[in-house]
C-alpha cells in the first residue's frame, strides 16, 4: 500500500480525533486564561484588568462547553461577561473618573501574597495529584438543559429559593449601602 493511503487512513477514528481536538482546545484556553489571569492581577491599568477578566471569564465558559455543560457556559457568558463585567466597568468609571493606573503595590506585599498563593497552589495540587491521578473524564453523555431545569425545580428547590431571596437581599442591600443620603 502506498504511503498516501496510509496517511489517509490515519484520521479515521473519530474518538481519537475528538480527543485531540478537545485537548488542543483545552491547552489553548488554559494557557490564555492563566496568562490573562496573571496579567489581570498584575496590570497597573484598572480598565485593562477588567478586560483581562473578560478573557478569563470567556475561557471559563469555553471550559464549561468542553465539559459538556453548555447551558452553564452560555449563562456564564451572559451573566458574567454581559452583566458583571459591565458592572465593574461602571464601578471603575464611578470611582475614579479617569482610568489611570492603580497605585503601585509595595514589593513586600506582593511577595507575601505571592508566597501565600504558591502555598495554596502547592497544597491543592498535591492533594489533587494524590487523589485523582488517573481519573478519566467520560464525556459520553453531556447534560441537557432540560435535566438541569428538572433538578433545579425538584431536588434543589430549597437552595434555589434561598438564592432568590439572597438576590433580593443583595439588591436592597446594595441600594441601601450606595444610596446618597
Amino acid at each position, binding site marked *: *500500500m502506498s504511503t498516501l493511503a496510509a496517511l489517509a487512513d*490515519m484520521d479515521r477514528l473519530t474518538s481519537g480525533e475528538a480527543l485531540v481536538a478537545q485537548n*488542543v482546545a483545552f491547552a489553548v484556553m488554559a494557557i490564555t486564561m492563566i496568562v490573562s489571569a496573571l496579567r489581570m492581577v498584575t496590570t497597573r491599568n484598572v480598565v485593562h484588568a477588567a478586560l483581562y477578566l473578560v478573557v478569563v471569564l470567556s475561557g471559563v465558559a469555553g471550559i464549561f462547553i468542553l465539559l459538556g455543560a453548555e447551558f452553564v457556559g452560555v449563562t456564564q457568558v451572559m451573566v458574567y461577561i454581559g452583566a458583571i463585567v459591565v458592572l465593574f466597568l461602571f464601578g471603575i468609571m464611578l470611582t475614579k473618573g479617569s482610568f489611570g493606573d492603580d497605585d503601585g503595590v509595595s514589593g513586600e506585599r506582593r511577595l507575601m501574597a505571592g508566597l501565600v498563593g504558591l502555598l495554596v497552589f502547592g497544597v491543592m495540587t498535591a492533594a489533587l495529584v494524590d487523589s485523582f491521578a488517573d481519573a478519566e473524564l467520560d464525556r459520553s453523555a453531556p447534560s441537557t438543559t432540560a435535566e438541569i431545569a428538572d433538578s433545579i425545580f425538584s431536588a434543589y428547590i430549597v437552595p434555589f429559593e434561598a438564592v432568590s431571596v439572597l438576590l433580593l437581599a443583595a439588591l436592597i442591600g446594595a441600594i441601601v449601602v450606595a444610596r446618597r443620603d
Partner: protein
Amino acid sequence: MENLLDGWGITLATFSPLVGAAVMMLIPREREDQHKLIALVTSLWVAFVGVLLLIQFDLDHTDRLQFGVDKVWIDVISSRFSVGIDGMSLPLILLTMLIVPLCIIYSWNHFPDPVNPKAFLILILILETGMIGTFVAQDLVLFFVFFEVVLLPMFFMIAVWGGEDRRYASLKFFLYTLFGSALMLVSFLALFFLTGAETFSIAGLSEAVAAGGVSRTAQLWIFGGMFLGFGIKVPMFPFHTWLPDAHTQAPTVGSVILAAVLLKLGTYGFIRIAIPVLPDAAVTWAPWIGLLAVVGIIYGALGCLAQTDVKRLIAFSSVAHMGFVMLGIATLTDFGINAAIMGMVAHGLITGMLFFLAGSMKERYHTLEISRLGGLLVQAPRMGWIFGFCVMASLGLPGLAGFWGEFPAILSAYNPANGVPIETFRTYMVIAALGTVLAAGYLLWLLQRTAFGNPPAEFADDPAITDTTRHEWIAWAPILALIVAIGIYPNLIFRVSDGAVDASLSDCLTVDAHQLTDEEVEALGCSDVYRLGEVTGHDDDHGDDHAEETNEHAAAGN
C-alpha cells in the same frame, strides 16, 4: 549534447565559477571593467548550463538521480566523487544559479567599501561553486567539503565589506557554523564506522542503516549531531543568534546570498541526509524539531516587533519563515517536505528581494533606523511599491510565492507521519497559524513606518534619494516575476519536487509502521486491518525499490 551534459553537465556547472575566479586572479586589480565582465559572463554561463540541464531533466522521473557521475575520488577513505540531481535539489540549484548573476548585476556600480571589485567578485564565484556543489553532492565527504567551501568566502565578505561591527559578526558567524560543522562531521564519521558499509554515499549508508547495522541509541545520537550542524545553519531557535548580526553587518549582496541560498543548506541537509539515512531517529526527534520550529516562528515574529533596524527585522523574519520550513520537514510527510522545498525557494526569492531593497534604502538614506525613515512611497514610488509587494509576498499572501511555503506546512502539521505524535503537531499547527498573524503584524508595521506617510524633514529634499535605477530593475525583475509566477502556478516547484520527496520518504514511513506498539496504534486510531495491510504492502514495495536502486547505481557507476 545530451551525452556531454549527462557526463559533464553537473561538473561544468559546479566548477565553472572556480575557473572564472582563477582567470580573474591573473588580471590586475585596476582593470575593474574586465573583472565585472568576466564574473558576469561566468555566472551567466553557469545559469545557461543550468537551463540546459533543466531542459534535459526528465520531469517524469524526478525521483531518479539524473546526470549522475560516480568516480573514484579519495579511495583511502572510500569517498567518491558522486554527484547527481533529482527533484529535491533541482529547484535549489536553479535558485542559486539565478541569484548569483543578479547579485553581480546589482553591485555593478556600487560596490561597498572598500570597493575592490576583484576580490569581491572572486569571493562570490567561489561561493557559487560551494553552493552548487553542496546541492549536487551525493557523498557525505564531498558534501562536507562543499559545505565548508561556502563558509570562508562568506566570512571574508562580512569581515571586509561589512558594517561597523563586522569583526564581531563575522567571527560569530564563523565560530557558530564551524561548531555545527564539527558536530556534523563527527556524525558522518560515526555513521561510516558504525555501519561498516565502507562507503560515504548517502544511498549506501541509508541502506546499511535500514539493514539494521546501527543500534537505535546510536542513531539517535548521530541524528542529534546532524540536527545541531544543520540546525545552526538553518538557523533554528535557539541557535539563531549569529543570523541577525551577520545579516545586519554583511554587505547587501552578502545578505542576499546568505538569505537566499546559504540558509537553505541546512534545511537541505535535513531532507537530503538526516531524514533518509536515519528515518527512525527522525521520527523520535520530530516532535522536538517541530517544537523548536514553532518556537522559532513565534519567537522570530516577536523579535521582529522589537527591532529598530530594517535589516535586523528582516533577519529575524528569516528565523520565523525558516520555522515554517522546519515545521514542514518535522511532519516527515510528503506533503510537509514538499511544502518545505517550496518554502525554501519562496523564502530565498522573497527575503533575498527584501535584503536587496534594504540595501538600496541604506544607499539612499544612509541609515536603516526605522524611526528615522518614512515616505519611501513619496520619494521613490516604484521602489516603494516593490517594497510593498515584497512585504505582501513575505507575509504569505495567496497568489504570491510565500503562501505556498506557509499554508501547506500548516496543512501538513495537522496530519503528520505515522509514529509522530499527532496531538502535539496539531497544537503546533495552531501556534504556527498564530505566527501568520504576527508576521502580518510586523511586516505591515515595517511597511507603514518606512513607506507610508510623508518623508521626515531630514530627508525631505535629499537629492540622493532617487527612484529605482536601471541596474536595480534588471536585478530585481526576474525575482519579482518568479514570485508571481510561482504564486499563481505553484506546480512549477511542486511538480519537480514531488516525485523525489515521495521516493525518499517511502522508506522512512514504512519502516516506521513496523515499530508502532499496540497502544500507539490504539491512540492514533488506526485499525488492525490497515496495519497488517500496510506491512505486507511495504515489504513488496521495498523489495522493488531496492532492486531498482541497485540497478541504477550500477548504471551510474559505468
